[in-house]
């Protein structure tokens, strides 16, 4: 039975989410501190309206640019905006039809409408569920007792329903029961080994934006976190029971059907090695120093969940705002995105604070946060650099950063580009996972660290130039993208121009410039067997940095 069941208001201004949550908590929390908070009054004053969703962001951006004498990039053109919005919100480039539809629309608010449309697209929850599954479990985890698909499905539901972020996080931290029925349970199960050290460091990084793991072995050199703070959080992860539930399968063999996660009160504490060789012990204690009143009577994960989503705290909102901003902008106000703290001052501090406050006051509405960011002058800026700058690093988000696609984005985009002619595309997550494994690497240590060899390396270039996926993309077999496009082209009045246009739209979501088009059309018109030439051109477009980068 989920503690925070029920649906709350999700639109901006609907602060019932927070209020209900606080009230809901008050009923189960013994601590008076939380109950005192009570419902928050009234809608926030300066929350962006529907007409001007980023109303509160741009003045702060512009003030910062003026103060620093920064000349921002020109606003992004429709083609540029379209492509990045698709990649960032739904995780792939637009199909030719989707691109043409947006580019030919004249409505003045078409960008805001596009974002709304994408947020309602079935690929939005899918994309964010994939993103968060990767963050919560890592890309490569395939343990026998972790039901990755159940977690992804659970996340998809939360994002599709735009469930307030504090509720989602509360469930992730406290989830119990069957990992098959309650997908959220898998997060905890996945990181329990080694006395839940991985769970401690992942939870504080993902939900609170704090890299507490760096004080696992010593006090923080640049802020006042102590070694005991890490182990204080770690001590919440005691009294957790994991049971394998076996059932006979179809052939009558008994096998593990699912895993059951539950909590029991415990008097256990965490032990750790101090640098002087002595042992330290820690009882449950939150980062801000708050302790659990009766640690040996409480369900500790539930207590931790309450502290994490405590409406008086701002770490939860900060962490999500910073991470989401980074998702859309290439980097956060604070970087690394989960290393917030006094030792690491944010860029654009007033904006970061304001966005955090609005996200908090607006009921942790993730879709609304995305609308705000996508409408901001920073997200609307072109990736074209305004003037020659000595150092290309831009601290103030005045130019859109160039970013490499993630493996998932690249795979899905390649499929979109080359199956654009098929209605519904040809998404295949299982194939994607298999393909991606070649770029994954796990360190096999107690923090579940992993990395990908994907970001623009030689193996990636080889895959793009010579790999199977590219061979499929360039196929000249009946039913392939190129043969279909060629057949369509032959029916048009100017087949060569149509074909060049189609390839550019499919790969780069833009029409070729006049100079690009002229030479290619001339060449095509003078050659009888167009297929090899088209393959080579499509190869070049898909291998270009314009395709591989988000810009």
């Amino acid at each position, binding site marked *: 039975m989920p503690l925070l069941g029920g649906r709350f208001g999700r639109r901006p201004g609907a602060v019932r989410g927070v209020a209900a949550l606080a009230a809901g908590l008050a009923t189960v929390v013994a601590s008076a501190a939380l109950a005192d908070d009570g419902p928050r009054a009234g809608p926030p004053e300066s929350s962006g309206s529907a007409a001007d969703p980023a109303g509160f962001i741009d003045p702060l951006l512009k003030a910062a640019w003026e103060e620093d004498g920064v000349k921002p990039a020109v606003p992004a053109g429709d083609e540029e905006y379209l492509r990045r919005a698709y990649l960032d919100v739904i995780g792939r480039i637009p199909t030719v039809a989707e691109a043409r539809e947006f580019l030919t629309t004249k409505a003045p608010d078409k960008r805001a409408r596009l974002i709304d449309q994408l947020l309602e697209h079935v690929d939005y929850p899918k994309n964010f569920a994939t993103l968060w599954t990767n963050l919560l479990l890592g890309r490569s985890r395939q343990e026998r007792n972790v039901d990755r698909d159940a977690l992804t499905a659970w996340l998809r539901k939360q994002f599709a329903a735009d469930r307030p972020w504090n509720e989602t996080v509360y469930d992730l931290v406290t989830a119990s029961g069957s990992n098959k029925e309650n997908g959220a349970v898998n997060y905890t199960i996945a990181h329990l080994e080694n006395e839940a050290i991985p769970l401690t460091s992942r939870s504080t990084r993902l939900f609170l934006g704090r890299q507490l793991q760096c004080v696992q072995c*010593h006090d923080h050199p640049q802020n006042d976190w102590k070694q005991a703070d890490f182990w204080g959080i770690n001590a919440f992860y005691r009294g957790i029971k994991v049971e394998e539930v076996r059932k006979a399968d179809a052939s009558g063999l008994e096998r593990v059907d699912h895993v059951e996660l539950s909590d029991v009160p415990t008097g256990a504490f965490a032990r750790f090695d101090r640098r002087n060789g002595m042992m330290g012990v820690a009882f449950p204690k939150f980062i801000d120093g708050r302790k659990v009143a009766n640690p040996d009577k409480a369900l500790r994960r539930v207590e931790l969940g309450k502290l994490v989503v405590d409406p008086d705290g701002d770490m939860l909102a900060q962490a999500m705002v910073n991470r989401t901003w980074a998702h859309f902008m290439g980097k956060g106000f604070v970087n690394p995105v989960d290393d917030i703290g006094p030792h690491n001052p944010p860029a654009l501090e007033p904006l970061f604070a304001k966005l955090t406050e609005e996200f908090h006051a607006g009921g942790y509405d993730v879709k609304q946060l995305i609308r705000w960011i996508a409408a901001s002058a920073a997200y609307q800026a072109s990736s074209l650099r305004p003037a020659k700058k000595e150092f290309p690093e831009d601290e103030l988000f005045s130019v859109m950063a160039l970013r490499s696609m993630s493996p998932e984005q690249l795979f899905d985009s390649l499929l979109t580009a080359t199956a654009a002619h098929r209605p519904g595309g040809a998404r295949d997550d299982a194939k994607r996972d298999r393909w991606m494994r070649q770029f994954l690497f796990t360190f096999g*240590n107690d923090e579940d660290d992993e990395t990908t060899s994907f970001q623009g390396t030689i193996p990636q270039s*080889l895959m793009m130039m010579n790999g199977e996926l590219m061979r499929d993309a360039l196929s000249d077999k009946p039913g392939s993208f190129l043969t279909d496009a060629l057949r369509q082209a032959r029916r048009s009045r100017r087949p060569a121009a149509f074909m060049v246009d189609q390839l550019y739209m499919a790969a780069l979501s833009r029409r070729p410039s006049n100079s690009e088009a002229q030479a290619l059309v001339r060449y095509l018109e003078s050659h009888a067997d167009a297929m*090899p030439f088209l393959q080579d051109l499509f190869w070049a477009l898909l291998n270009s940095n314009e395709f591989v980068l988000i810009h």
Partner: protein
Amino acid sequence: MTPPIITPRGMRRRHFLGHMAATTLGIPAACFFANLRGAAAAAAAPGGKRPKSCILLWMSGGPSHLDIWDLKPDSERNGGPFKPIATSAPGVMISEHMPNVAKQMHHLNILRSLDSKEGNHDRGTYLMHTGYVPNPTVVHPGWGSTAAFEIGGRMEDFDLPHCVSINTPGQGAGFLGMSYTPFMVGDPNGQIANLAPPKDVDALRMNRRLQMLSRVENDFIKKRGAAPAVDHKAVYGKTIRMMNSKYKDIFKLDSEPDAVRELYGKHSFGSGCLLARRLVEQGVTYVEVAMGGWDTHADNFETLSTRLLPQLDQGMAALTADLADRGLLDSTLIVWMGEFGRTPRINPNAGRDHWPRCWSIVMGGAGMKSGQVVGATDKDGVDVADRPIGVMDMIATMTKAMGIGMDTQYTTPRGRPLKVVDDGKPIAELVG
């Protein structure tokens, strides 16, 4: 056309652009498959001396130094079951489970008093690879990428990556760019995936594709010029050189005699060591060979004696001996380390936990003095008893051994200076 040496003093946008133009536009499109170059510059650099190389043996997870290099048989609490044995270096004792490396210890040195302060895998890995603790304002280049940039980057006409990582992605190159990011060989016993173009794409057709690619992306780069776009192009240049190179077979170990393969061991670490030797022989500046499984929170002694140490002993000993036999040891720095050591205290699961306070690393070759132990821990292994060594001292020692300028300094993308050796002193006993 050969790529000019980029100035190491600053990585400004103009340099990126210049570098990009030189490495990519000139070479590959014009001569794919057309020209298999002569010997790599490696064999004979100016002055007739072999340029230096480094092989890092990376023990991912944090190796239990007290059971390998710094045994404490007299410590009742912390000693563990392993016995020390004598080695080819007079007075130097190591673990009984390292009998083959024991015969090579006269080539190597043990540093027993490293104090590194980072006990988290991620941060320890970063620290030991870069010399710096993670810092939000800059991504430090891995020291291997720095070496590749300083030494490999000055070579003309070199078709292989200067920085290679085997069994691990290795540390990134930070602002030095993707060209100096380690080329990862995921499985040294396998093939490099996708190295050959599809059968229906001959040299002529590949050239046409590359020319089209140049045409498609030049405008994009010109207008944006930011590192990712330039990098992408530079990496394609490198990739094409490698596809085009006669050295691409260097990655295939089947050409080695079986006796040699047996000597190194056919496990991924042994094969990695053999591949590292082959790469260094061709002039690759930096090769990292990783071996995992060292995070022995439980069953430390069982895991070490039955699985980890036999493989380590075999690969490391074969590599050291082979480099010495081939006259490559004088120009090749061997470094053995992980992200930290392990606790002197043996936990209730017969394991040892993370311990960065005082632990051991090993290095030798590249003209260093050898056969020594530097520094010491106390009887129970919980504190440095003699001559604390910092991570920057280690970096300074490696930098000096490789002949890289001790004052080498870069300008980060934020315009700040960054030294390769920041406040570290080379260990005089090794490179004094």
